[in-house]
C-alpha cells in the first residue's frame, strides 16, 4: 500500500534482482487469486514480507519455481510459489480491503467502497485470525485522526501496533516472536511517519489529518498567532530535523530487531532492503526528490 520497503537495485546482484522479481510476480499472481483489482495495488512492502517469511521458514526449500504468463506485460515470467508468498499476499489483500473501505469513508466516495467490495475473502486462511485485529487497529487509527492528535507518534504507534501483530503472528518460536514484533512495530511506525511527510502537500490541500501538520500547528503556529497561512515549504523546513531524528530512531530499532533473526536464505536481498533500501527511501522522501540519481 505504501511501497517504501524496497531494495536498492544498484546494490543487488543480478541473481538477487531476478529472485526479487520472482517474489514480486509470485505475490502478484497469488494476490490475483483473491482479486485481480488487488494486484494493481501491489506494493514492494508485501514482497519484502514474502521474502522475510520465506527466509525465516525454510528458505528456498519450500518455494516452487514456476513459469507463468503475465497478462500485464504480455511476457512469460518466472515466479516463486509457496506458503510464505501465499501468506504475504493474504495479509496484503486483507489490509488493502480495509484500507479501501477506510478511504471510502475519508473521501466520501462510493468508488473506493465498490473497489473494496471486489476483493473477495474466499480462501484466505489468515483472514479470520487477522480480520478482527485489522479492524480494531484501523478503528483506533481513525479515532486518533478524528481527534486531530498533535502527538507526532500517536498515530504511528497505532499503525506500528497493527504491523507488529501481523509480523508476530508468523513467528515460530518465542525469541523470533519478540524480534518479529519489534521489527514490525518500528517498521510500521517508520512507514507511517515517512508517508505522512511524503503526503504533506496533498494533506494540506485536502485538509486531511497529518500528524506532522498537527504537530507543526501546535508547536509553531501559536507563536505566529495564526496570522500566517500554512505553507508546506515552511512546515517541511521546520519539521525536517525533528522528523529525520524520529525516522532514524525507528530505523535503529528495526536494525536491532533484524539482527536477531536467524535467516535461512535470501539474506543478501533482505540485508539490501533493511540496511540500504530503508535508509535510501528515508533520504529520498526527506530531500523531496522523486528518485535517487542512480535510478535515472
Amino acid at each position, binding site marked *: 500500500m505504501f511501497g517504501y520497503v524496497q531494495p536498492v537495485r544498484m546494490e543487488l546482484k543480478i541473481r538477487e534482482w531476478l529472485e526479487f522479481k520472482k517474489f514480486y510476480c509470485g505475490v502478484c499472481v497469488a494476490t490475483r487469486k483473491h482479486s485481480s483489482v488487488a494486484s494493481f495495488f501491489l506494493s514492494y512492502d508485501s514482497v519484502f514480507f514474502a521474502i522475510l517469511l520465506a527466509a525465516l521458514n525454510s528458505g528456498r526449500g519450500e518455494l516452487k519455481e514456476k513459469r507463468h504468463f503475465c497478462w500485464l506485460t504480455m511476457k512469460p515470467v518466472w515466479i516463486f510459489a509457496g506458503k510464505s508468498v501465499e501468506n504475504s499476499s493474504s495479509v496484503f489483500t486483507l489490509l488493502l480491503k480495509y484500507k479501501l473501505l477506510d478511504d471510502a469513508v475519508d473521501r466520501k466516495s462510493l468508488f473506493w467502497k465498490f473497489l473494496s467490495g471486489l476483493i473477495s475473502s474466499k480462501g484466505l486462511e489468515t483472514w479470520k485470525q487477522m480480520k478482527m485485529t485489522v479492524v480494531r487497529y484501523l478503528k483506533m487509527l481513525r479515532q486518533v485522526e478524528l481527534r486531530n492528535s498533535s502527538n507526532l507518534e500517536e498515530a504511528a504507534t497505532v499503525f506500528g501496533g497493527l504491523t507488529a501483530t501481523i509480523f508476530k503472528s508468523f513467528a515460530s518460536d518465542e*525469541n523470533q516472536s*519478540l*524480534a518479529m514484533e*519489534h521489527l514490525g512495530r518500528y517498521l510500521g511506525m517508520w512507514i507511517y511517519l515517512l508517508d505522512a511527510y511524503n503526503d504533506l502537500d496533498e494533506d494540506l490541500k485536502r485538509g486531511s489529518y497529518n500528524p506532522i501538520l498537527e504537530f507543526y500547528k501546535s508547536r509553531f503556529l501559536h507563536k505566529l498567532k495564526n496570522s500566517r497561512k500554512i505553507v508546506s515549504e515552511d512546515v517541511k523546513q521546520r519539521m525536517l530535523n525533528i522528523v529525520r531524528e524520529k525516522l532514524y530512531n525507528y530505523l535503529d*530499532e528495526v536494525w*536491532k*530487531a533484524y*539482527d*536477531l533473526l*536467524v*535467516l*535461512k536464505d535470501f*539474506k543478501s536481498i533482505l540485508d539490501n532492503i533493511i540496511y540500504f533500501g530503508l535508509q535510501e527511501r528515508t533520504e529520498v522522501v526527506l530531500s523531496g526528490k522523486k528518485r535517487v540519481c542512480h535510478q535515472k
Partner: protein
Amino acid sequence: MGETCKKDPFVVLGVPPDAALDDILNVYKELRRRLNPERYQGTCLEHVASNRLKEVEQCFREILRLKKLSDGRFRGYKPGYYRPYYEGYYRRGDCCPDCGDLCTACACIWAVDTCCECSGGDCI
C-alpha cells in the same frame, strides 16, 4: 565445552557448510559485534539478544569442532611431503618414522615407487 548447539550451526551463523574457516571467523566477529549486549541494553530485546549471542558462540565452537574432525577429504599437498595430504588421517604417524623426508626426496629424484609409504609406495 558447555552446551552444544541444538540447531544446524551453519544456519545459525548464516554460512555455507563448505565455507573457509577465515570466512566463518569474519561472520562470527561481525555477529558478535552486532549482538553486543550494550547495543540492546534497556530494550525489550535484551534477553533475546543474549540468548542469540550464546547460541552463536555455541554454534561457532561446534563448527570449529566439525572442521577439525577428519572427514577423509583430500586437502592438497602438505609442503615438504610428496603425497596427498589428508587432514587427520595418517597410516603410520605423521610421516615415515624411520627415514622421514629422505625417502620422499629419493622418490622425487628417481621417480620411483619406493617401498616407503611417505613417498607414495604401497608395497608394505
